[in-house]
């Protein structure tokens, strides 16, 4: 039995755990304010709020999610808010600003924008115009051209800064951003009995952002093992001279984690991956297990020289380099029933950069992505980890190129040779994300940019 709160109503349902939350909202509950624009996570018309209770602080933290892909089973114990859940106070400042600025035309995208901005208002991130814009990076509007929406982002930021002395729930309630019933939610969620995640048998289902796109109907008829976890249980932490990243960590967890502070522009790089409402639910393990040849996290962690922990019952039944994990197109070094528990990443004085080029810069899948990590010592390259996606049937660890660079003193000639080796290691194919010729050229260009950026202080002319 799945139990949660939908707006101010308690819900108990026996619907299949892989039912998309959107279908439950629209079809089972007749709450049709939430729209279906694509059912693939790509338009944001279905955005709703998902609130998790922190058992210690009794605080509920809200995020926007694409309800078309989030499995119903994952919402057990949470608070789900749709646009109807704001009815008591409508129009609230978000809604008023959108009306005033003319930021809605056909209106089909609009409830999604409202909910994304509600997550911004309820969140604890920076209250800047830039952050307000980032909050709607998963929402597509085909009518407005976004200028009026950008003005709304500015208005909301100003209004939040102005009207909220204290940025907490009671402040938001009294300024009429959220209805009063939100105050009761923490207590109500606390009363919902916990269920043990990860039990049962069948296919693992985490955020659903791959599975509910790939086999939306089939998955609802299968038995599944829900492995998505509450925020408090998705740890990213330092562990001796390495970092531990839980397989259930979401991309948002990675983006916010202080453990990656050593990488300049880390958050900017991670924002190139999907969109806010997808990042809030998409997991590390899901990305690795999906084994897409252009999976961004796969590339990123390959180039961090990560090790992967897999096992049926325990994290460390087997642990080996991630570079050995991807065997062939969608073939993994993973036995039936084995779960991905997490990654171990060596710390150490190094530099790292992730690059991604796609047709549209944000919320798009890469044509080619790549990442490079270098350890330097005495003007020499001590160690290199280089990975590229979109150039092979698997997320590719460029072994030869990495090995070649090790021990070398960086200079233009060495880079030239490295490029030649890299070009021998790859075998891109033509598809909708680009011709083989383009992908080859694009990787070469990305490698040049990696060399230029990562060796900037070494005064090498690239």
């Amino acid at each position, binding site marked *: 039995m799945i139990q949660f709160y939908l707006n101010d109503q308690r819900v108990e349902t026996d619907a299949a755990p892989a039912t998309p939350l959107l279908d439950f909202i629209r079809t089972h509950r007749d709450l049709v*304010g939430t729209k279906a*624009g*694509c*059912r*693939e996570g*790509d*338009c944001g*018309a279905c955005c709703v709020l998902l609130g998790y209770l922190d058992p210690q602080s009794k605080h509920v933290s809200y995020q926007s999610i694409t309800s078309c892909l989030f499995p119903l089973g994952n919402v057990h114990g949470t608070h789900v808010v*749709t*646009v*109807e859940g*704001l009815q008591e106070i*409508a*129009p609230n400042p978000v*809604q*008023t600003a*959108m*009306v005033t600025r*003319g930021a*809605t*035309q*056909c*209106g*089909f*995208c*609009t*409830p999604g924008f409202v909910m994304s901005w509600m997550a911004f208002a309820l969140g604890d991130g920076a209250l800047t115009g830039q952050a307000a814009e980032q909050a*709607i*990076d998963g*929402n*597509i*509007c*085909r*009518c*407005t*051209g*976004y*200028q009026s*929406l950008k003005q709304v982002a500015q208005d909301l930021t100003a209004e939040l800064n102005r009207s909220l002395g204290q940025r907490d729930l009671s402040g938001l309630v009294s300024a009429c951003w959220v209805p009063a019933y939100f105050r009761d939610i923490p207590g109500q969620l606390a009363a919902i009995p916990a269920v043990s995640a990860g039990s049962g048998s069948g296919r693992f289902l985490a955020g659903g952002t791959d599975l509910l796109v790939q086999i939306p*109907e089939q998955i609802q008829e299968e038995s599944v093992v829900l492995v998505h976890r509450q925020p408090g249980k998705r740890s990213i932490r330092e562990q001796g001279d390495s970092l531990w990243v839980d397989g259930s960590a979401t991309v948002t967890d990675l983006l916010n984690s202080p453990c990656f502070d050593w990488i300049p522009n880390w958050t900017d790089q991670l924002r190139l991956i999907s969109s806010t409402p997808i990042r809030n639910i998409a997991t590390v393990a899901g990305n690795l297990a999906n084994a897409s040849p252009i999976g961004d996290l796969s590339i990123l962690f390959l180039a961090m020289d990560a090790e992967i922990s897999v096992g049926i019952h325990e994290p460390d039944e087997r642990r080996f380099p991630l570079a050995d994990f991807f065997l062939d197109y969608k073939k993994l070094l993973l036995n039936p029933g084995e779960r991905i528990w997490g990654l171990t990443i060596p710390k150490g004085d190094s530099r790292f950069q992730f690059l991604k*080029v796609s*047709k*549209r*810069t*944000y*919320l*798009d*899948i890469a*044509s080619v992505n790549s990442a490079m990590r270098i350890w330097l010592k005495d003007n020499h390259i001590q160690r290199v980890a280089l990975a590229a996606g979109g150039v092979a049937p698997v997320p590719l660890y460029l072994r030869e190129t990495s090995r070649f660079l090790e021990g070398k003193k960086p200079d233009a000639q060495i880079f030239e040779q490295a490029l030649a080796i890299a070009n021998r290691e790859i075998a891109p194919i033509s*598809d*909708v*994300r*680009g011709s083989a010729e*383009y992908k080859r*050229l*694009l990787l070469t*260009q*990305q490698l*040049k*940019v990696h060399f230029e950026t990562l060796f900037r202080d070494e005064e090498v002319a690239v």
Partner: protein
Amino acid sequence: MTHWDALSHVCGKTPYLDDLPFPANGLHVVPFDSPVAHGHVRALDIGAALAVPGVVAILTARDIPGENQIGGIIPDEPLLADHTVEFRGQPLALVVAESNAAATKAAGLIQAEIEALPVCTDPREAAARGDIIGRVRTFEMGDVSAGFASAKHVFSGRAEVGGQEHLYLETQATMAFPTMHDGVRIISSTQGPTAVQRTTARVLGLPMHAIEVEVTRLGGGFGGKEDQATPWAVMVALVAHRFKRPAKLVLDRLRDLRMTGKRHPYQADYQIGLDADLNIVAYQATFFQNAGAHADLSPAVLERTLFHCTNAYRVPNVKAVAMSCKTHVPPNTAFRGFGGPQGMFVMESALCHAAESLGIPTWQLQKKNLLRDGDVFAYGQTVSESQAQTCWDRLESDFQLAKRWQQVEQHNQTSNRYKRGLAVMPICFGISFTKTHMNQGSALLHVYTDGSVLVSTGAVEMGQGVVSKLRAVAASALGVPAERVKIEYTNTTRNANTSPSAASATADLNGKALDLACQRLIDRFRVLLVQDHGGKPQDYHFHEGKVTGPNGFEMTFDALALHAHFQRVSLSEQAFYSPHGLHFDLEKEKGHPFAYHVYGAALVETTLDSMLGTYSLDRVSVVHDLGRSLVPIVDQGQLEGGLVQGLGWMTCEEVAYDESGRLRSHALSTYKVPDLYAAPKEIELICLESNHSYAIRGSKAVGEPPLMYGIGGYFALRHAIRAQQKGPLAFHAPMTPERALLALHTPVREPAPQSVTNAP
């Protein structure tokens, strides 16, 4: 004044089709579409599909009681393919089931045995084989041969521009209910309720009065629901009529993408001649329109390509030839601009080619050749009230064109990796349906006894704000507050034989009719007032919800309505409007097809990362002739939205089919429309307020023209590429990051543009 619907939208209370209550005993319909682009249908195995629990029936062409024909302009398109399929995605059968899930599942189990035939997706190839839909059209003025002979410079080449997916956020959706006397009531997300009505009547073999079509509102249309909302509505009508049960069909996004047509891709050959002073003396172009498998609206779209093939420029000698080429992709259809933008792209390519060869900025050539009053378009209409020069001048003075150009050039000299680009895009777009008879609108006006006002017109609200404009018209004409006016859903029983909401003309045509209806009602009220209170009719003024007259007479509008009712004076009016003076002779290809033209100019600035081929749109500065806007916030939204849609078409939006006719850009993950960050960082707008009597209360049509500013995005990027790459470079839009990077770093293999300089 805001969008009338805005508050409802933000509260999530606006019902779109899929949100409307649908009875539990209703049937759900999912079309089964051809998996092959071209072939003979040998057999359809529906056994497994029929066995799915909940499946009620599977209908095919044989189940159609009337004519299996939905072609609007040319009768060449069956509702359900019978013997031959001509594109992947063509409907072959309808799965009818108790639930959408059952229907979807069953559709996946149908097996079609199709003997494959050769597939053609290239319009030039189709033209070479003579696979032309309709006739080849030629617009001719002056003598091009003489023009080219007199030219100092002649440049010729090829240009190619891609298609565009509408990506209305609400997919195609419709439902139907059986009604008494063998009729059907349809609710459809369509821009063209009358087309739905007419076609349903034809397919069901019923008179048009048996079919009622209602349109509540659309979650976006952009032309994609002008003609192509029709088949789905006819399908549910067929099911409702046959089973005497309600029926509903909402296309999922993937089906919508693969089964519906898009903006037409074009290929073209051009030749342009300039005299020593760089005046255009001759222009010749041949357009190969990729029409897809059936005519749909292609012949009309083709026509508009010709109308706009010289954009905003004075060209004394023109010869433009165009043909709709039949290929095996879904029938391409109306899309904001309706073929005009494609014609303009080719003209701009020709000018850019000339400028690049002559080593001058393109904008100098553009400026030199802008239209002036008294010039004549190739189709015979004389230019009057041209705003081309005015718009350009404001662009130069207010947005400092020359200075910005210099800054860009300077930047490019010093920066290696990041190159900037700048281009100007002037536009001139004709307002009216080019099929003259379609220029008509109608309005039905009821005032109720409490003084509240109800308006119905043929206009469909799809986000373009037409209801807000109509409300403004009625409120101002009747002198009542806007809150007292309600614009009713569009319905064929209230407004008959309407034109679709398209061609940017909806507010003009229906608004003028409404204005007339209001005027007539006011006249009738005045007669009554004179009878009762004396004075002359024009002594009575209607404003702020009341009527004032001689000797301090004052009465509320509401009281007057009730009074009139008791005096047995009709509180209803119906009015019809058609602009006079429009004509076009299809044999001579000459006439006066447009009520007026809309002008403007945009300055587009970009930055290109020459290492990676990625780019950003930094700023777009627009001078646009809006006239006297009725609802400025609506018009500004149309401007910005159209502009960004046009920029998308020129940059990241790439419709791709493979050789087998399969849509490769098949989902939102592979077809990218602009998001917040792909849109320009900044848009500056200056709106001119020229007047024109054909525009509704002086508020000029705004739906389509701004889209064409987007073309400047392509040329701005090209300019940035030119900072590094001086070699041959094909004119091929969209300029995706892939095209940009390949242009920057690999030799060009496409045929190089030709240029000739005539000996003086």
